[in-house]
């Protein structure tokens, strides 16, 4: 699954159509995408172009209307809801624009959350959460509740939660979209370090050209397809 080289994600001829009432919205059409293991890919494109939709397909949060999504050699579009949920828990780390932390849990407990889906002992969960918080530089904040943390700190908790299970893929939907420049840069430093030092494969949706510059490759989504150039 985590082979050192090769293609981690293979998307072939994917269509995605949403139905809103009687109206059909064609978001993705005949889309192909290959992401090699260890890549840091930035996805850009106008609002509503389907960036989040594509990210959801890669992360098994949604299924294509047509075509196949293969991650680590597994065809995830064929999995049942139940198995897909288990697959996500094991292979995907998600980072959201608005952090999506549980307000009633401390930073430490938020990070431990995905580990509840594993068979790790309580002590082991605690240890791993502490390591993840250490990686994002927030060890000193582990007993704080989200509302007492700054936006940048909350996003770092979000990243710690995403990496605590050591996922195959890290998917970030506008991770700096709600942050000021400085906090945003810190988050990007962190993602870059995770990619370079730990070899994490990252897909990041962003509107920010500076953020995209940190990635090893940038693709533009427009009219349902990907291209390497921003076409007007």
């Amino acid at each position, binding site marked *: 699954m985590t082979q050192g080289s090769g293609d981690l994600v293979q998307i072939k001829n994917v269509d995605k159509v949403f139905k809103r009432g009687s109206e059909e919205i064609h978001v993705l059409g005949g889309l192909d995408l290959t992401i090699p293991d260890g890549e840091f890919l930035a996805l850009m494109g106008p609002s509503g172009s389907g960036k989040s939709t594509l990210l959801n397909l890669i992360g098994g949060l949604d299924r294509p209307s047509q075509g196949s999504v293969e991650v680590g050699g597994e065809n995830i579009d064929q999995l049942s809801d*139940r198995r897909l*949920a288990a697959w*996500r828990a*094991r292979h995907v780390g998600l980072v959201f624009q608005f952090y999506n932390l549980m307000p009633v849990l401390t930073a430490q407990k938020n990070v431990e959350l995905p580990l509840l889906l594993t068979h790790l002992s309580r002590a082991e969960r605690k240890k791993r959460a502490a390591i993840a918080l250490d990686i994002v530089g927030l060890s000193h904040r582990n007993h704080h509740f989200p509302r007492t943390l700054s936006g940048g700190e909350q996003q770092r908790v979000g990243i710690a939660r995403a990496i605590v299970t050591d996922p195959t893929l890290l998917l970030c939907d506008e991770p700096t979209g709600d942050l000021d420049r400085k906090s945003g840069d810190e988050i990007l430093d962190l993602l870059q370090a995770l990619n370079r030092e730990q070899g994490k494969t990252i897909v990041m949706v962003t509107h920010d050209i500076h953020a995209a510059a940190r990635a090893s490759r940038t693709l533009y989504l427009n009219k349902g397809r990907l291209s390497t150039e921003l076409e007007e």
Partner: protein
Amino acid sequence: MAGPFNWLSQVTSVTAFGIQSLPQRLGSSLTSMLGIAGVVAVMVAVLSIAQGIMQTMNNSASVDNVVVLRSGSTSEMMSGLSGDETRFIAEGPGLARNETGSIASPELFVIINLLKKTTLTDANVPLRGVGKAAFDIRDTFRIVEGRMFEWGLNEVIVGIGARMEFEGLELGSTIPVGQEEWPVVGVFEAGGGLAETEIWVDSAVLQPAYRRGNSYQSVYAKLESPESYQAFKDALTSDPRLNVKPMRESEFYSSQSEMLYNLITGLGTFIAVIMGFGAVFGALNTMYTAVSSRTREIATLRALGFHSGPVVISVLTESMLLALAGGIIVAVAAWAVFDGFRAATVNMASFSQVAFAFDVSASLLMQGVVFALIIGFIGGVFPAIRAARQPVATALREL
């Protein structure tokens, strides 16, 4: 990966987040809890009234007592017996005896008007004329204040229930009977039974006051033993001089209270069901609000790989916990405030007042709590299913 242990720990943690975040949704949670509490309160109140009335009737009845009315009459009010008839009845076989003869009391039953203390409106109060044997038949009878009336004098004694319920029954006050005012000389208990709602006087004094000549309305008598009832009954019903209906006391009281009991229970259930519907909608609304305010949380959990089963169970648990809290609050309050609380209602058979104590029993409280849980379940199940059915990607967008 998804073993039963794992699933259970998902349920516990998802449920715990929901419950921990309850304080953030205090308003709507309290509203729904109180709504459910209100419904349960009505149900418990009504059923405790019904049980209280049954209890009063049961306390009134003794297994070796009989009541004899004219055939075809369903209450003492409607019955009538001549002095001769009451003598023939007292001569019936199987009755207990003492020095003065068989223990049988021919009685008169009339209604007077008194003000009800709570509403200050007119109410019908039974005034019973009794014979000497009456006190041997009601063996729980006891004077608790003042003294017994003198035979042959127009003095009355009042039941403690009646005194509590109506104006002007204090020791030393007088009650209007026809053109006269009769003094209250004593207060009595009768084991919590129906007699406690009545006013008693010498039947020989009551007869002329109501121009009854030598007639009566009923005969109360004590049997030698509960088994001698059949012989007594057969003798009376086959006696050509008599046209009467003997009944065991328990039979008589339950026939008197049946209509009332059914009416109250039926009405109470009806009201509780109607209110229950209201509470279900209240609970539904609360839980929809709760679910939508937790949309992001629930969607995030599911995105992280939590199953939707635990989500359903968490929402349901929350709803049922709120309902349980409402139910228990009512149960405790009802028991503390209302158990033994005395009230009165109209006996449908005699149209006189029946005083009774609310009987808030443990089983009644259990019924209330179960009812609350049912409301909580119905109120939670639809929002829970909705939360679980929504596709994760869609739920994540609704933030």
